[in-house]
């Protein structure tokens, strides 16, 4: 069965090869140049650019967005099969043997979705940050890093080969590192930043090995090249490539077992959490899997592992989200969980690729909106993030409350909000996979929907309703318009994006030439989506019983064993500590000891060896009876002796 599936899918998936760029795509490098220029000016310009630097950052992001829209319009004007455009900007690595890597840009249906998401949501968050970071003396540096992030992220999604993708991939890792550690003068952010980079590097090992394996097998690292030949490789090799790509995706997208860095990453300023650690960068793993569809199509095993990782993480993140009192960490757990849904969808293969992207785009809106709302609250509450010290903020911050509420309804999937249109089809598709695995994956996704409703209702109730639990120093009122207007736009997206993308199969049809066409779904009000709605309402009701009906205690109750575990991120850090960090530190100490102790012993043995071996050498020489050789040797020894005698 799998063989025939592969046979039918392979030609379809490789049907779309790219054509030389035309029209606006001729200058697609501008997408990188705008934010790249911004970053350069802001980071090299120093204090001179303090006054206007943030506006330059906003302008460069908006310029990239404007150019992205122009490209999108150009693509819409082309026939569906001719929407893959390729532009070779310059030769990055010239041909060495078969290995040749240009900086090539690929504008197609998949990459343009990401370009619009990154630059669109990115620009909104730039604007928001002008207000949010207004009091920070380092605001210019912040915008420099943000622009650097936009440029790297765009490179990641528009690269036409895996190595250039990898450059963007590590570039966003650097931007993430710099932004998590933005307040470097405090003790916690630098540690969190380093942790994020190192966890990502573990994933990067997987991605780089995947690229090497592709080159060793096919002699190419370009998408078109690899996809044109992948079907001829042995199944085991294809699965290996798929799993290595998945390892990379797990690092970047905070999926099990490389999830633990994301919660710590909340040390970064909130706009960063919204843009990088919710809407865009952390979804790069999903992009990688979907972009590599022709590889995963040929390996049911690799797909199954992707789906299992997604299903496990969606539950894992949701459970953590239930126990966190820090509003940003609760949302971070939720991000892990939602990306788990996308991974699950991507692991379902051609049935799910487009669904993964749809949920990714919708999630970009509502999760960015939720984070910006949380940022507005934090901003007004003197940087307090403990929800047990919030309460009753709805009346003080009406716009924030309403926009956050839209995001809330979207993420739990109440029709007609976004999540309903993008999450339920994933649950549907998981069940439709059939067999034991389909039932298990589907059930996990269904339960996850209930838990999501519980923890998000908890966040909502603890923050905006009930008694005021904040102290007298806080005087929360609505954030300035420069912050609320992006929130309003994202709220509109939370309401409408899902329906817009999914109704009339808009996105599915648009993406079909790149990722294949899924079988027709059976409408949005299937038995499963009704079951999902029931669970959502049940989850919300339980949350209301605990956090709505009763007062929320300011200090956290001890809670059950599960709560305790969830508060500790389900022992993710404890596991890393005992499995990796402690043995690693032992090994380091042992190696240093060995190296230091070895020194003196080695020197002695070297000295001994010199005395012994020169004798042997002399014997060898006399064998050839070349007297000059011996004289040169004596000369050399004299030089040594002279050097050693000269006082230093």
């Amino acid at each position, binding site marked *: 069965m799998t063989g025939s599936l592969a046979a039918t899918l392979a030609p379809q998936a490789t049907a779309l090869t790219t054509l030389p760029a035309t029209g606006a795509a001729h200058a697609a490098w501008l997408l990188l140049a705008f934010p790249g220029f911004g970053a350069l000016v802001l980071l090299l310009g120093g204090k001179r650019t303090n006054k206007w630097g943030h506006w330059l950052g906003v302008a460069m992001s908006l310029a990239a967005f404007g150019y992205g829209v122009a490209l999108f319009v150009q693509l819409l004007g082309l026939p569906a099969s001719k929407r893959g455009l390729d532009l070779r900007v310059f030769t990055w690595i010239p041909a060495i043997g078969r290995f040749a890597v240009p900086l*090539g840009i690929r504008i197609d249906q998949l990459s343009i979705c990401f370009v619009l998401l990154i630059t669109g949501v990115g620009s909104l968050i730039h604007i928001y940050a002008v207000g949010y970071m207004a009091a920070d003396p380092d605001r210019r540096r912040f915008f420099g890093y943000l622009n650097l992030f936009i440029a790297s992220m765009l490179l990641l999604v528009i690269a036409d080969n895996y190595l250039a993708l990898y450059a963007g991939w590590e570039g966003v890792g650097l931007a993430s590192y710099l932004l998590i550690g933005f307040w470097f003068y405090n003790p916690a952010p630098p540690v969190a930043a380093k942790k994020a980079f190192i966890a990502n590097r573990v994933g990067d090992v997987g991605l780089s090995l995947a690229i090497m394996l592709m080159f*060793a097998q096919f002699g190419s690292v370009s998408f078109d*090249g690899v996809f044109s030949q992948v079907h001829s490789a042995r199944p085991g090799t294809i699965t290996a490539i798929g799993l290595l790509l998945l390892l990379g995706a797990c690092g970047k997208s905070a999926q099990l077992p490389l999830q633990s860095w994301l919660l710590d990453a909340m040390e970064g300023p909130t706009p960063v959490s919204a843009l990088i650690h919710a809407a865009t960068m952390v979804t790069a793993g999903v992009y990688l899997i979907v972009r590599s569809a022709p590889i995963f199509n040929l390996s049911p095993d690799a797909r199954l592992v992707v789906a299992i990782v997604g299903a496990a993480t969606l539950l894992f993140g949701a459970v953590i989200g239930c126990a966190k009192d820090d509003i940003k960490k609760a949302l971070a757990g939720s991000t892990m969980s939602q990306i788990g849904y996308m991974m699950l969808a991507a692991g379902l293969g051609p049935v799910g690729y487009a669904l993964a992207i749809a949920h990714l785009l919708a999630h970009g809106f509502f999760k960015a909106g939720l984070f910006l709302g949380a940022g507005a609250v934090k901003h007004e509450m003197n940087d307090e993030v403990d929800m047990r010290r919030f309460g009753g903020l709805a009346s003080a911050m009406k716009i924030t409350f309403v926009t956050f509420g839209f995001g809330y309804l979207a993420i739990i999937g109440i029709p007609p909000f976004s999540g309903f249109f993008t999450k339920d089809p994933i649950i549907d598709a998981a069940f439709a996979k059939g067999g034991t695995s389909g039932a298990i994956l589907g059930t996990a996704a269904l339960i996850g929907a209930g838990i999501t409703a519980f923890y998000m209702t908890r966040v909502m109730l603890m923050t905006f309703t009930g008694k005021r639990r904040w102290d007298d120093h806080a005087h929360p009122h609505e954030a300035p318009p420069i912050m609320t207007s992006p929130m309003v736009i994202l709220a509109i997206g939370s309401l409408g994006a899902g329906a817009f993308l999914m109704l009339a199969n808009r996105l599915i049809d648009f993406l079909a030439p790149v990722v294949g066409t899924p079988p027709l779904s059976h409408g949005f009000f299937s038995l499963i989506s009704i079951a999902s709605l029931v669970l959502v309402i049940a989850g919300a009701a339980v949350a209301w019983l605990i956090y709505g009906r009763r007062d929320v205690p300011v200090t956290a109750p001890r809670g059950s064993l599960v709560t305790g575990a969830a508060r500790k991120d389900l022992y993710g850090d404890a596991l890393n500590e005992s499995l990796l960090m402690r043995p690693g530190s032992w090994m380091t100490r042992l190696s240093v000891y060995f190296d230091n102790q070895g020194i003196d012993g080695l020197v002695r043995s070297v000295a001994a060896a010199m005395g012994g071996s020169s004798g042997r050498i002399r014997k060898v020489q006399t064998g*050839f009876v070349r007297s000059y050789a011996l004289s040169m040797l004596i000369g050399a020894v004299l030089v040594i002796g002279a050097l050693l005698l000269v006082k*230093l």
Partner: protein
Amino acid sequence: MSNFPWLTVAGVVPLVGAIAIGLTPGQSAPGGPADRRARDLLVKRIALVFSVITLAITVAMAVQFKIGGPRFQFTQTYQWIPQFGVHYAVGVDGIALVLILMTTVLMPVVVLASWNDAEGAGNPVGSAPPRRSIKTYFILMLVLETMMIGVFAATDVFLFYVFFEAMLIPMYFMIGSYGVGQRQYAAVKFLLYSLLGGLLMLVAVIALYVYSTSGGRPGTFLFLPLTHLVLSATVQKWLFLGFFVAFAIKAPLWPFHTWLPDAATAAQPGAAVVLVGVLDKVGTFGMIRYCLDLFPSAAHYFTPLIIALSVIGVLYGAIVAIGQADLKRLVAYTSVSHMGLITLGIFAMTSQGQVGATLYMVNHGFATGALFLIAGFMISRRRSAQIADYGGVQKVAPVLAGLFLIAGLAGLALPGLSTFVSEFLVLVGTFTRYEAAAILATAGIILAAIYILWMYQRTMTGPVKPEVASMPDLKARELWAVGPLIALIIVLGVYPKPIIDVINPAVRATLVDAHSANPVPPHPVNNRFVVTGLSSATSSSTQNGSNP
């Protein structure tokens, strides 16, 4: 200009500079402190001017290098000791050319950065004062430059050996007389290790000459004729080992590395840059030039062992680096790791591996050079090399911290910076032949992230320590010294093509001599995809590097 003796002139100019410095009035000349200061300044300026002139000459030479021309260019051959077939013969292939350029770029940078090092003013508290004069320090440096150019330019094995050994002398004094901490111990250790290797090589060099006389031919030390020498398998193995051990100590390859951390820690930062940036490369250069070309079958015989040692070096150097408490020592151990990658690339015997390894030699010189120099700037301010004595430096010296971060990121081979291209080429070139070795070495990129970022975290971030609160940011001189290196790290990361184009033909010639060809992928893609996509289909056939 085609017959202009470029290499000889480039080699002689620093020597002339050294003589000029020697002619300036010394410490004993009459005059007060102000006169002495003026004399010191003159010495430094002469050193800077002559190193810049040398750089200009080598750049002028490089632009005339013909890609696709003869293997060795700018050649000159004169008889030196006719009785033994010794020649003064120089010439460069692409590999030697880029290494000479790296050397001549680094020298003015090092002179500028070491402006006050010879006084010992910035040494860690408790260090002994320098034993010799400022004048001597810069003379040693310029003499060393002559020898470094000579060692890369020599195309006569004996001439190469002479430079190879002579290089030790100035470096020995630079460490032993001007260094910090246990400088004498470190200098003697450096000398003993190097001489042990040198003696083994000397035996092999002489034996090579003896074998070249077989069959009644006049013996020779010239490199090109020697590549055609037919040697029995056993002889090849012994001679290979003679050369290889010398180079492995120089590089240094694990487990011959233990002299390096001591020497680099004891040396002044500028001297450490020359030591790790250039002298180490003489070892890896020797491997790719002499071990592979002269003894191909022995090289193949020993390859599994060398690959294993390289991989151990990559991981071991990185793990030990993580555990270091001293800034310079940490950087020295990262070099052990990186040199392991370079030898890995050389002995993978693929064009990607060897081009990557050669490119890595250049990039590592710049990246580690920048790291050592900026660490030196910090040490001269805080008067301590201990990582634990720093904290929060980014707050008080943001420019210093920013450049240190870029140099550090080059150390962990971040894409966009020069080291990434070379590191990935080495790994991919290794992977096509030795998967397991490449997988293990790739795991090293995690360790690299740990040692760099942890060092950065401990020194630059967190609350500002009171001892560093008044630390000034980089001065103009320091910025002029290290700025060009940072710029090169970035430019060569984005556009390494000019250097790769120069290296490519030289590596192809080496692989031919070494009887090696790239493995052919089992499922090669249609040629039009080799260089990505349709738009480039036409240019892929014109690329000059298509080595099957």
